[in-house]
């Protein structure tokens, strides 16, 4: 099955990304235990928890950076345990990083185009030898097309450029089109990372602390932006964030981790008033300053 | 389908030569009354000492010739280029000598791969080339412009096999060859063949790489086979150390080798361990011939130290060239080539040079015994 992502029917009620009882251990440290999650397109979910709770680790497991020691990750119904991150990305899962990881010497446009490019690649639908060979043949043939500058290739390049420009525009970065990524201010780098992730035309977008390093005003803008992206691109979005205003403000459901374990899950209001969450994460003062339940 | 092979034959080469090297009518860019020769040799890298010895020998010969009035009133000069012991550098340097410096003749390198690379260029351009000390047979097979003033590997291998079998009466000999050197591999091959033909036995063949300094592994392996002698056709730069380490692991049998051994440094590197070993060579400094003794004295005065075979051969090659230049009717490639080809009974310090139809010198070889700080003449073996 080598279906193209864009061909998948929009707004399916099928979950796109599913984690089923996922655990991972580093040496003796249980970073994530029995983690369950299910995201559909159009969902806007939050993942919170104290520092070191295992939130980023969860992202890494979902995107194939780490292999779970237990449990199953599924994307669009296919089990993806053992697959490489790029294969999972091609299935429609994109992410940003807690510590910005842009291609620093590349222009903003090229950063996005790198991700756009993925759509022209074949999906490695199975791990069989035949499919691998086919894939390899396709890839080498693709190099030849770009070497020969075939009209088809030129059209493809133009399409990529347009697509990337569009994404820059959406993220309000058009004026930085040709600037090297490392020269962008921090906030714009964060946005560029999101634009890049969108380039791979994901069905699910994972954002790891997108508001970190932003001031209150910028955070407010970001909230609007995330909602807009969800709607315009029909994305499932999962956000890790420590800014409660942001998380509580936009997320429909929230999962709370502590020491790798899921200690609460539910609507913001429920989570916010959960004793365990307050103890482990929010702190009593949060309750004071925000006046308990909404 | 066979095709006529477009190898640079003498005729094609001649035309090229007339177009370039010979066009100024023998004049050189330096000035009209100088004849410029060229040398390509290893001046840097692992084989640098060979190139430098050769250069010294050549330089001495030129100085003498110039002191004696030069060639037909013209002074001789030489340009020396380094080939870093690499064939492509040798080819480049040879090409530069031929086409930029417009030398009338080039003197080649020691290492056969490098001489081969030069020979290709010299032959194609129709510029005569003499290699002083490349003993590999293929070098002069490159064409009729390529000569040598030394004997060839098969002969030298044969000499030592004969000496080992008949004079030293050895039954079982181990071979330790330098795997990076075509010369060493050739000698070891010929020696192995001849020695077994004469009824001897090869105990084992081990190898090392030029530049190594630890041979204990090979020597320990050799020791196990309990040979009567060890044939080490390498260069003195390694042989000296090999001798020391052979003694160290408890091998007391004699070592034998070829002309690559010949250097004053052999005694320094080998210390007392090398004493009592034998090697075949082009000449013996013991030779009482006054010409030889004068050469040795002059060389000592100019460069310090006893000249090795490479210096002697460089000296001979240069003198053969100079004689031929004197005899040649002009300085064009073909004339010089013909003049060199006629070399007969030329009295060199490293034996009498007569060039055969394959442009190789037919010479006898001497066997020397290494003593304390000097070599000692043992015997002469004729082809």
């Amino acid at each position: 099955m080598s279906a193209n992502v864009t061909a998948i029917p929009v707004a399916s009620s099928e979950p796109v990304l599913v984690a089923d009882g996922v655990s991972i251990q580093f040496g003796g440290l249980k970073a994530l235990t029995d983690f369950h999650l299910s995201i559909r397109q159009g969902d806007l979910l939050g993942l919170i928890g104290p520092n070191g709770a295992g939130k980023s680790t969860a992202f890494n497991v979902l995107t194939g950076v780490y292999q779970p020691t237990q449990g199953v990750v599924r994307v669009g119904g296919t089990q993806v345990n053992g697959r490489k991150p790029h294969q999972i990305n091609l299935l429609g899962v994109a992410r940003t990083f807690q510590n910005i990881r842009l291609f620093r010497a590349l222009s903003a446009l090229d950063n996005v185009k790198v991700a756009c490019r993925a759509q022209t690649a074949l999906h490695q639908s199975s791990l069989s030898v035949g499919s691998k060979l086919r894939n390899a043949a396709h890839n080498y043939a693709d190099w030849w097309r770009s070497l020969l500058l075939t009209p088809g290739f030129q059209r493809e390049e133009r399409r990529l450029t347009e697509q990337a420009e569009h994404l820059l525009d959406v993220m309000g970065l058009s004026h930085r089109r040709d600037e090297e990524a490392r020269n962008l201010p921090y906030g714009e780098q964060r946005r560029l990372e999101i634009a890049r992730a969108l380039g791979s035309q994901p069905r699910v977008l994972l954002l790891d602390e997108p508001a970190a390093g932003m001031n209150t005003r910028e955070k407010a803008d970001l909230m609007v932006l995330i909602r807009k992206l969800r709607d315009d691109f029909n994305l499932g979005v999962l956000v890790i964030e420590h800014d409660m205003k942001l998380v509580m403000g936009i997320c429909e459901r929230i999962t709370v981790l502590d020491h790798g374990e899921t200690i609460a899950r539910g609507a913001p209001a429920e989570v916010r008033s959960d004793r365990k969450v307050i103890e482990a994460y929010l702190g009593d003062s949060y309750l004071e300053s925000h006046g308990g339940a909404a | 389908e066979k095709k006529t092979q477009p190898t640079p034959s003498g005729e094609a080469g001649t035309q090229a030569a007339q177009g370039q090297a010979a066009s100024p009518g023998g004049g050189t860019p330096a000035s009209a009354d100088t004849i410029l020769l060229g040398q390509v040799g290893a001046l840097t890298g692992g084989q640098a000492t060979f190139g430098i010895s050769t250069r010294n020998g050549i330089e001495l010969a030129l100085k003498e010739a110039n002191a004696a009035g030069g060639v037909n009133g013209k002074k001789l000069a030489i340009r020396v280029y380094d080939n870093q012991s690499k064939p492509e550098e040798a080819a480049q340097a040879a090409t530069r000598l031929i086409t930029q410096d417009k030398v009338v003749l080039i003197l080649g390198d020691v290492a056969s791969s490098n001489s081969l690379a030069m020979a290709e260029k010299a032959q194609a351009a129709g510029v005569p080339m003499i290699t002083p000390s490349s003993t590999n047979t293929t070098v002069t097979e490159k064409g009729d412009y390529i000569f040598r003033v030394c004997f060839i590997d098969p002969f030298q291998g044969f000499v030592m096999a004969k000496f080992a079998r008949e004079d030293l009466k050895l039954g079982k000999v181990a071979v330790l060859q330098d795997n990076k050197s075509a010369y060493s591999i050739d000698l070891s091959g010929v020696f192995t063949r001849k020695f077994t033909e004469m009824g001897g036995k090869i105990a084992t063949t081990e190898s090392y790489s030029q530049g190594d300094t630890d041979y204990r592994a090979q020597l320990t392996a050799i020791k196990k086979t309990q040979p009567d002698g060890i044939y080490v056709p390498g260069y003195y730069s390694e042989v000296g150390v090999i001798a020391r380490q052979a003694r160290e692991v408890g091998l007391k049998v004699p070592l034998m080798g070829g002309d690559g051994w010949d250097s004053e440094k052999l005694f320094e590197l080998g210390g007392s361990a090398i004493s009592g070993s034998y090697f075949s060579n082009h000449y013996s400094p013991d030779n009482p011939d006054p010409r030889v003794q004068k050469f040795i004295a002059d060389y000592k005065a100019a460069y310090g130290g006893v000249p090795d075979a490479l210096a002697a051969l460089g000296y001979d090659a240069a003198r053969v060239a100079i004689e031929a230049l004197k005899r040649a009717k002009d300085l064009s490639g073909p004339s010089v080539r013909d003049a060199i080809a006629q070399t007969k009974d030329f009295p060199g310090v490293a034996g009498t040079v007569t060039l055969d139809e394959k442009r190789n010198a037919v010479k006898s070889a001497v066997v020397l015994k290494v003593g304390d700080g000097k070599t000692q003449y043992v015997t002469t073996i004729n082809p």
Partner: protein
Amino acid sequence: MSEAQVKTLGERQAFAPLLTVEGIKVHYGAIQALKGVSLTVGKGEVVALIGANGAGKTSTLRAVSGMLKASAGKIRFGGQDTTSLKAHQLVPRGMAHAPEGRGIFPNMSVLENLELGAYLRRDTAEVKTDMEKSFTLFPVLKERRTQMAGTLSGGEQQMLAIARALLSRPQLLLLDEPSLGLAPQVTETIFRTLREVNQTGVSVLLVEQNAHLALNCAHYGYVLETGEVAMAGPGKALLESAEVRRAYLGE
């Protein structure tokens, strides 16, 4: 020197000056990050530096701590001209800098990181007690003593960076966005600690995105805009100013 028009709100509490920065400029290649920044930090004072992304807050701290060489201007610290001193020469004079991006040593254990904080100190016994103090401040660090710092979570790393900076017993602590990526609770802890530290007489120069927190905590504040000081004033006064509320608090 293009001294900007600095809008000053309110009177500054009197502190004996510890750090004085006069018109420093910093360049990264062709980019000019600081165009003449002047500020002072008094003994025992907490000073906040706020501003949008790329305003030059980090660059200011780097220039002060000697990580960067200012191309113009003067820096005086503890009564000495330190403009041309290198970073490692400033540490023994009482400067500690917890840099942006935390700058922990990932391939060393938590404990070793802390020990590096006390690199110049010879009073082993007191280092021990100081270390115990930081463990009570940040209990996670005690738990993770032997873990490689690189595998700590982001927040844990930030705590480590601060704890390490304190271990040199500085007179002036430079903190670059200490709340970055921290859970709300931890952020509070850190600011509480900051106040405690300040109580012991340590001056703090604090760069923060969370203007609310920072200005609440600070005696005095500066607002940086594109490499220049645009506004200055006591923390509370800035917090109440309409411009700051609009630009940095999103109100």
